[in-house]
């Protein structure tokens, strides 16, 4: 159909011929899928094809594990989690909690970063797409666990107390980089990948942990 496509076809034909008796190997298929993606996708709007298709090691390893239908081996999973954990940026001023009301707005919004969005779009957190959060919102997804009563269940009555510190830090870390705690989590790495900025993460942490947030009522 065009030059790019025919090039892929040549590559494809080569693989098919080379693997006539047994079919292409896993390595050959992985490479072929890479080539097919490269020739099939193009830049559009704010989305750059190269950036998306050349994912980092975390995404690459998890994709391969998903294709194989087997989770990452324990050693690799641990290494991936450590790499992501080290990359977490903790709040620059030591303040973990912002305004839960703004957190709710961020959690509701699924906007931003698609090829039909412009660079000025304020990104949302997409939280309700997968999680129950405030019980009043009945339109919530179920890919992730319910977060209703998130802080209450974990015994957080004063987020500034020493007792609450581990939960507060974990909550920040999980939102900033979910893969630090679960290598192949379905959850985006909101802070790490620049979906949400530091102030926005603070607001979402407050939505989950502020005793005044409807989440903990």
């Amino acid at each position, binding site marked *: 159909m065009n030059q790019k496509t025919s090039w892929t076809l040549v590559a*494809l034909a080569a693989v*098919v011929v080379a693997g006539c008796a047994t079919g292409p190997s896993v390595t050959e*298929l992985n490479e072929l899928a890479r080539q097919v993606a490269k020739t099939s996708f193009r830049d559009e709007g704010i989305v750059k094809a190269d950036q998306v298709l050349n994912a980092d090691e975390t995404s690459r390893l998890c994709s391969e594990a998903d294709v194989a239908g087997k989770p990452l081996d324990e050693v690799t999973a641990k290494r991936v989690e450590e790499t992501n954990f080290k990359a977490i940026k903790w709040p620059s001023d030591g303040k973990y909690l912002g305004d839960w009301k703004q957190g709710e707005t961020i959690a509701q919004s699924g906007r931003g970063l698609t090829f039909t969005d412009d660079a000025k779009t304020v990104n949302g957190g997409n939280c309700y797409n997968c999680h129950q959060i405030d019980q009043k919102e009945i339109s919530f997804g*179920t890919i992730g666990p319910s977060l209703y009563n998130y802080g209450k269940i974990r015994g957080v009555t004063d987020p500034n107390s020493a007792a609450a510190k581990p939960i507060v830090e974990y909550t920040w870390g999980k939102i900033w980089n979910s893969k630090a705690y679960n290598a192949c989590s379905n959850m985006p790495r909101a802070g790490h990948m620049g979906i949400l900025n530091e102030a926005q993460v603070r607001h979402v942490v407050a939505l989950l942990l502020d005793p005044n947030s409807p989440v903990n009522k």
Partner: protein
Amino acid sequence: MQRSHLSFWAASLALSCVPVMAQKTASQGIDEYRAMLQDGNPSELFEAKGEDLWKQKRGPKNTSLEKCDLGKSPGVVKGAFVELPRFFADTGRVQDLESRLLSCMEILQGFNAADIAKTGFGKGEQNNVTALATWIAAESKDMRFNLSQSHPQEKTFYEVGKRLFFQRGGPHDFACASCHGEDGKRIRLQDLPNLTKNPGDGVGFAAWPAYRVSNGQMWGMQQRLNDCYRQQRFPYPGFASDATIALGVYLGVNSKGSASIAPAIKR
């Protein structure tokens, strides 16, 4: 047509009576809403247009598409849809319905397939491809998917499609599998079919082309995949590109034995 159009609008109006649905689950309410709409699925209009386009002499060569080979032999439409994508010897490619239509439009009618592929959805000849795909799919309604995996390229495309399905990337690390990899999940209130296996009659691959009530548009599978990738924060998949066709093979083969309800009606 007049009557079905009217019942379509009546059904739309009924939607405003939401409290009636309050005791049911949201999903039941949506199912009922869809059932009401089935009464007057506007895709009938696109089917009629597609059938006309198939028989009409068009393009630089002023020829109809009646000799187009959709896989079962030239001119045979019934049953073709539920066997696509498949390998075509004349083009040397695995093709889905829409890419095959581009080939027929180019070879038989003299259109420039690459130009049509570059045209945005809902514009110019793209609208005609959608109408043709809608009619062709409708001719196989209630038939069961049965894609061939006998040609080596068909097998290879399945494997490539599977890899694309699980390929995570972009700022959100999303793959198709992030939403469509498990049973019984939903996004907001929208139920998500698990497309890593056979999702059942009329679900997933077995539902498109479909009429989308929310935007009043008829979408083919190519546009459905395009919008999935948009929401995944992926770059733009070329129309009739190998990636979209390979994904079609993966989804279509997984749907083996499921009945097609295309053209379906969607929220």
